[in-house]
Structure formats: structure tokens, C-alpha cells
């Protein structure tokens, strides 16, 4: 996965090292379990700034604190890398884009946009395993030394000055640009794929799910009219190459491991967040991508009431030709399912008003107030009811 935030973290390390150090040698050895870098090293400076970034992250107000989600991810990490999991801190960050990152000091970020897109435990495992491989292989340090040896101090400080204004999570444009400056090399990504796949397969996860996740992302991305919104793809080898490679590994790995996707733990952990994360997904305004995603999650058997409701929201907000009719159809499907929020009645009423069906709209608004008598918008809905009568 991409280090969308990792570049920002790496930039912090430049403060210490950009001017005072000359060329450094890129380390070849893996990080040992429990190992911390010696204080006088470039790596120690990098870790120190990662620690500062981590402190900022904890104060960001963007961390999902739910123990069920965090325990699920921690347990998964320990299954994947039992020797390292005690030194890895996982933060679930409320950002609706697909991404996960691993900092050299053991700080892992898992964005909610990734958890929304994963269908099962195995898909989460392969992504985490890939990130853990970057950590064990010390790729951030290697990349940083490589870059530092190529840039002069003024170039580094120019980027650093700019980055200081980005903050913890800047706009997607800022992040994409910074990521393009300091992304992992293709060779490092391949290495992380290799180790990550091997560890996940050894831990018993379904080896076919790694390629399946990327294929789903490829389909989602193909629907986009704005390809650069996929920050993780801007920092990774071609998606086609990755899928082919993972499929080849999968075919070889099937002889070694016969894992299962492992749905139950993952789905139950994230289920309470699905409403919020689906809503966050729509705030991206990338409706074509979101439509593909929501349909995929429906097919995968996720909460039908919520997914039909959010498909209704998507069509109602997109307002293309025929979208209001599509929205009404989705709301009605949602309302026939358990798990549909009461506000679906209010939403379908707005779509019915738009399509010239005031009688049906009135009934829906009445049902909304029946279903949610303490609705925070009760008085404005009552006014709308008066106008419809």
C-alpha cells in the first residue's frame, strides 16, 4: 500500500538530517524484533520524527477508537508477524480513501476507506502483511537515504517548508503530490508483496483474496473520471502487473495453503461503522466509483438496508438523467430490509417531490416522523407536510 502519510512523516526527518549528514549507506539488513536504532544514526532521527508524527496523529481526533475494530486488527497482525506485533501500533484513521501505511518506527495507519472496501479477513490480512513487510525490511529508511543522497539541502527544505503547511492530513492533491515525491520504489513494493503474501499464506489466509481485492479496486477505478484520486495507485507498480503477480503466487501457494477468507470476525467488527463509512464515501463526490463499490458490497452480502439506502442517496445527489427514479427504487428496496435507517423515508420523500409525486411524498414524510418521533428536523418536516397537504 502507499504511504500517503508516510511522505509527510519522512519529510519531518529531513529536519535532522538534510544539512548535517553527508551521503549514507543504504542498510540491507532486516529490522530485528524489538530493535531500536542507535541514537547517533540517521535511522534514529527518522524514528524520532515518526514518534512526533504519531503523537500528532493521536491528538488528531481522526482515530477510530472502537476496541472491536482495533482488537481485530491487532490480532490479525500477531497472526501475520508474531515476532513483531508487540512493537507495532495500529491506528484506524477516519479517512474515506483506500490506503494503509507503515512508518519505520512501527506506527501503522489503516484508513477507513480501506476497511470499507475489504470484503473479508483475508483481504485485510494481505494488505496488513504487505505493510508489515515494509517495516521489517526497513524500506522507509532505505528510501529516505536514497533520496537524501540525490537532493540538495535547499530542495529538501523547500519541500519541508511546504509540507509544514499540509498538516496531518492535507487535501488529496497535497497528499498525492507529496506521495509522488517520496514513494517506495517499485522494487520495494515487489519485495513487500512477496514477503507479505508469503506470511499471510503461512498464517492460513485465503491466497486468492489478495488478487481479488486488487481486481475489485481496478474495476472501481475504471469507473472513475478522475484517475488521480487513487493516491495509492500513484505510488505503486501498475495494478495489472500486481494482479498478475498475485494470481501467479496464488496458484503456486494453493498447493501450500488452503486458507479461508474468514468473514465473521471482520464483518462483525466493522458492521457498527458501516453506516458512517458509507456516508463518508459519498462525501468524496466520486459517484461512479461509489456506485461500483456499493454494488460490490451488496453482492458480497453486506447490510442490504444500508447499501440500498446509500445507493438511493448516491442517485439523488448525483441527479443525472433518470437518477431520481433510480433513487426512489433503491430507497424502496432499502425500506423493505432490516437495517434501513428511518431517514430513508425522508430521503425518498424528497425524491418523490422532485418527480412530481406529492401524495406519495406526504405518506413517506408521515412514516418518517412515525419511525423517528424525536427527529431533529421534525419541525421543518412538519412544515413540508403542511405544504404538501
Amino acid at each position, binding site marked *: 500500500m502507499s504511504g500517503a502519510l508516510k511522505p509527510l512523516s519522512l519529510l519531518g526527518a529531513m529536519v535532522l538530517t538534510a544539512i548535517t549528514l553527508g551521503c549514507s549507506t543504504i542498510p540491507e539488513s532486516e529490522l530485528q524484533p524489538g530493535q531500536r536504532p542507535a541514537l547517533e544514526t540517521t535511522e534514529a532521527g527518522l524514528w524520532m520524527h515518526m514518534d512526533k508524527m504519531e503523537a500528532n496523529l493521536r491528538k488528531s*481526533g481522526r482515530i477510530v477508537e472502537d476496541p472491536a475494530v482495533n482488537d481485530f486488527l491487532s490480532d490479525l497482525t500477531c497472526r501475520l508477524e508474531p515476532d513483531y506485533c508487540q512493537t507495532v501500533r495500529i491506528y484506524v484513521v477516519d479517512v474515506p480513501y483506500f490506503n494503509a501505511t507503515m512508518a519505520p518506527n512501527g506506527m501503522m495507519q489503516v484508513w477507513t476507506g480501506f476497511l470499507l472496501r475489504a470484503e473479508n479477513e483475508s483481504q485485510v490480512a494481505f494488505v496488513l502483511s504487505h505493510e508489515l513487510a515494509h517495516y521489517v525490511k526497513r524500506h522507509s529508511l532505505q528510501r529516505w537515504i536514497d533520496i537524501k543522497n540525490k537532493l540538495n539541502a535547499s530542495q529538501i527544505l*523547500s*519541500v519541508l517548508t*511546504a509540507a*509544514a*503547511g499540509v498538516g*496531518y492530513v492535507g487535501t488529496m492533491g497535497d497528499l498525492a503530490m507529496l506521495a509522488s515525491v517520496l514513494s517506495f520504489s517499485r522494487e520495494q513494493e515487489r519485495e513487500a508483496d512477496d514477503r507479505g503474501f508469503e506470511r499471510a499464506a503461512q498464517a492460513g489466509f485465503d491466497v486468492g483474496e489478495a488478487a481479488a481485492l486488487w481486481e475489485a479496486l481496478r474495476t472501481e477505478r475504471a469507473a472513475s473520471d478522475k484517475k488521480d484520486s487513487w493516491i495509492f495507485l500513484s505510488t505503486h507498480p501498475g495494478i495489472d502487473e500486481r494482479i498478475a503477480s498475485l494470481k501467479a503466487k496464488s496458484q503456486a501457494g494453493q498447493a501450500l495453503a488452503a486458507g479461508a477468507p474468514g468473514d465473521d470476525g471482520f464483518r462483525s467488527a466493522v458492521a457498527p461503522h458501516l453506516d458512517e463509512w458509507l456516508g463518508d464515501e459519498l*462525501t468524496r463526490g466520486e459517484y461512479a466509483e461509489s456506485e461500483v463499490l456499493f454494488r460490490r458490497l451488496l453482492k458480497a452480502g453486506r447490510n442490504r438496508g444500508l447499501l440500498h439506502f446509500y445507493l438511493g442517496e448516491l442517485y439523488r*445527489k448525483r441527479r443525472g438523467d433518470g437518477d431520481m427514479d433510480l433513487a426512489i427504487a433503491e430507497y424502496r428496496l432499502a425500506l423493505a430490509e432490516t437495517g434501513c435507517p428511518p431517514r430513508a423515508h425522508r430521503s425518498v420523500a424528497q425524491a418523490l417531490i422532485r418527480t412530481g409525486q406529492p401524495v406519495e411524498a406526504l405518506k413517506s414524510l408521515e412514516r418518517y416522523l412515525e419511525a423517528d418521533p424525536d427527529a431533529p428536523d421534525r*419541525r421543518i418536516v412538519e412544515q413540508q407536510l403542511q405544504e404538501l397537504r
Partner: protein
Amino acid sequence: MLRGICIFLVLVLSGCAAASFTKEQPGRHDVGSSYTIETTQAWSRHPGPPVWRTIDGKFLGTLSTWSNLKEGDSLLPQIDKKTPEFRSDSTPIEVAELVSDSIEAVVSGADVTIKDFKPIAFGARDGFSFELFYSQEGLSKRGLAAGALHDGKLDLILFLAPSEYYFDHYAPEVQRIVASVETRA
């Protein structure tokens, strides 16, 4: 290429556009051609778009105003992603969605909650008001919105401030401003 990226980032992130605030004395002020408001305190006015005012600074309270927003207009300038647009046939409920979606488009993870959504008089027009609650990088924010739909257009006043101290401190002034609206025919 890297040099270009550096220069671009420095320019963009350092806010190279010169601030053009004007000190605005208490009194009645035009909001576009659609309505006027009356302030009882001195505000610093930024021409926008959208026009916004502050007393203690941008992060401690902003009063934004829109006049005659029409089909396809956004509350905020387009950024690097699609910004929600106003539709001329919107209902008040959809205006509240426009406001919350616009905040969520620029404040990732804001998770805006709307409360106390009710009809009010907006000058001579039937209007609406609602409160907003959300989080911005760990800081609890609160807002008050008031507006009216007329002839397929939207007039809107939106005050946003940290929940702690600043919202309550300026809420009386903002409520006076909303009550002072005089609409033009």
C-alpha cells in the same frame, strides 16, 4: 520536476494570495443584491468568495453569507475534488444536506450532525434555520445556519466556530444578525 513541485507547494501552502480584509463598523450592510443584515459589533470582512466575516480570526469564528445562489453554484470554491452544488429546485432539507456535504467535502471526517432544524422568518421570506455539530482535527465545532429559498435561488447565512467558548460567545450577535435580515423584492 521536483523543483517545480517544491515551488508549487510553497506557493499554494503559504497562502500567497494577499489577504484583503476590511474593517466593517456596526451598521446595516448589503449581502449581494438580495438582502441586508445589521451588525452590532465591528467585524473584519473578507471579500471571498464567499464573503465571510470574523472578529477573533478565521479559526475562531466565521460568518459567511451567500446571496442569490443559483443552479450549479457551490458554497465553496472548487478545490481538488467535486464540491456539492446547489440545485434550484432544492427543498430546505436538501439545503441542509448541501451545507453538511460541503463541510464534509473540505473537512474530512467531519461527520456533520444537524439539529434544531426549524422554519423561521428570513426577512419577508419563509426561511429555515438549523444548527450543525462536527469535528475538525479533534476540535469540536458548532454552527448556525439560516436562509431562504426564493425563485429557485438561495440566500444563506452560516456561522461556524469552536463549540467551546467561541460559539456561545458570538451566538447572540449572530442571532441578532439573522433577525435583522431585510429582504429585497
